[in-house]
């Protein structure tokens, strides 16, 4: 099966996803600044282009033109590796996300609407995001700076702790769907979304996802009030941009997973003419993902930061036991009904 067409198709799909992703990241960032601005009675960026729409381009140019600093005492190889690792791993996770139920015709072959369809897609995402910790850990360590190190220590323990709650929360829906394939999980939600029977798991997932992506209220690793900028204090220019990119792509990934696992993915009312029928599932999917992204920004504009010991205690003593209890109850009910 792996032939020239297969590679070509994959290449095209990768290109499309990459383009969409980068554009999306740029404009989420703009949207964030605008929305948070409104919440704080400001207007946000307005100067570059109409309504500030060209602001992302200006930012990109700034990143490219800035001086790229490598501290003298840094571990050169790891200092270079960690931003690359962060960005690569975050993009890798996107490859298994399906954005629609049907197939697309490319170069005379039907191909699913995702870069690759594997049987254990959800596990793949968990595995790849769990590797993302290395980017943070190595960045902090290789910078050879106290703020960076503290930030990365916080980041590592936070991510490892919340990863557990995140993974355990996903097990409930997996039991209901009976599959680890994202496509099957969405198909299992044809009649009702898993957010209904798994509301607790949804809340746990959402909370843990905030911590996994180091966003407020769990942004301890880069708490600017105490740590400068946390693990990326010493980074500048494009290396910093890569961390930035990784954080936003991770946000998109967890939003996509939340949509697929809890909100029924591309399911939604489908009506109208053939073209509309084809496009509507995609629209539903994008709308749901955007809802989660908005939630992220909304929370950022609303909640204060947790204290570190509260964060750890909350993860281990509240989220993990709740998630375990959820698994127990879910599997009992599924087992009794079967």
């Amino acid at each position: 099966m792996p032939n020239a067409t297969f590679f070509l198709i994959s290449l095209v799909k990768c290109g499309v996803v990459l383009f969409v992703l980068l554009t999306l990241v740029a404009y989420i960032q703009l949207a964030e600044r605008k929305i948070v601005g409104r919440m704080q009675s400001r207007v946000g960026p307005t100067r570059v282009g109409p309504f500030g729409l060209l602001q992302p381009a200006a930012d990109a140019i700034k990143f490219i033109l800035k001086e790229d600093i490598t501290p003298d005492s840094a571990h050169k190889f790891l200092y270079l590796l960690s931003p690359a690792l962060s960005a690569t791993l975050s993009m890798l996770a996107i490859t298994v996300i399906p954005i629609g139920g049907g197939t697309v015709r490319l170069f005379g072959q039907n191909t699913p609407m995702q870069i690759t369809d594997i049987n254990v897609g959800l596990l793949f995402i968990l595995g790849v995001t769990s590797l993302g910790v290395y980017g943070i850990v190595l960045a902090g360590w290789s910078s050879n700076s106290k703020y960076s190190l503290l930030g990365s220590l916080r980041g590592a323990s936070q991510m490892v702790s919340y990863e557990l709650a995140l993974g355990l929360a996903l097990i409930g829906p997996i039991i209901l769907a009976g599959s680890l394939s994202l496509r099957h999980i969405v198909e299992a939600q044809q009649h009702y979304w898993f957010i209904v029977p798994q509301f607790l798991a949804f809340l746990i997932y959402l909370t843990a996802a905030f911590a996994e992506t180091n966003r407020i209220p769990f942004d301890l690793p880069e708490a600017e009030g105490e740590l400068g900028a946390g693990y990326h204090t010493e980074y500048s220019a494009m290396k910093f941009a890569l961390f930035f990119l990784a954080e936003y792509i991770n946000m998109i990934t967890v939003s996509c997973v939340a949509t697929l696992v809890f909100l029924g993915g591309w399911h939604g009312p489908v009506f109208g003419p053939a073209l509309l029928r084809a496009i509507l599932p995609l629209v539903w999917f994008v709308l749901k993902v955007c809802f989660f992204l908005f939630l992220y920004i909304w929370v950022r504009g609303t909640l204060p930061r947790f204290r570190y010991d509260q964060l750890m205690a909350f993860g281990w003593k509240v989220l993990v036991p709740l998630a375990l209890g959820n698994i127990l109850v879910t599997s009992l009910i599924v087992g009794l009904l079967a």
Partner: protein
Amino acid sequence: MQVALFFIFATLAVAGAVNLLVQRAPINAALSLVAVMGALAVLYLLLGAEFIAFVQILVYAGAIMVLFVFVIMLLNAQPDEASHRSRVARIIGVPALVALLVEFAGFLATQFSDSPVRMGEYISSTEDLGMALFHQYLLPFEVTSVLFLVGLIGAVLLAARREDPPAAMPTAVSSSSAKTTPAELVIR
């Protein structure tokens, strides 16, 4: 293509393992172990064991090795000093290792020449794995869970700080200042 991938990642795994042994700096050694884990995961994939492959990454590379790296960073572990290389190891160990490898190769070549592993032709379903684990291997599974529980209790017990006077020690885990995080990580 699968054979090519096998050789690439097998070489990577072996090279990573050798690098792990020869590296002096702990952080480099730990990172080579991560590379070994990753390469092994790809080898599992080639054998059709998707679940094992990603669990390998999730658990070993993503959790256990992170803690290793974490501890190395926390202790700021310096490169090891060279120990006295044992002469016995060089005179007896190296030839014995070579002899052992030759013996392995000979055995594998004669015993399994007719039944090569089917690479890439077969994908085990996660369901089959679950069935085997909870039916045929139920007892090992349960005993393993007892094993982990014992390890967990032991780690908490030995790592928990105790207050003086010792009689007042309400619980091992519940003290929740920021300093307990290493202990809490050990729980994992």
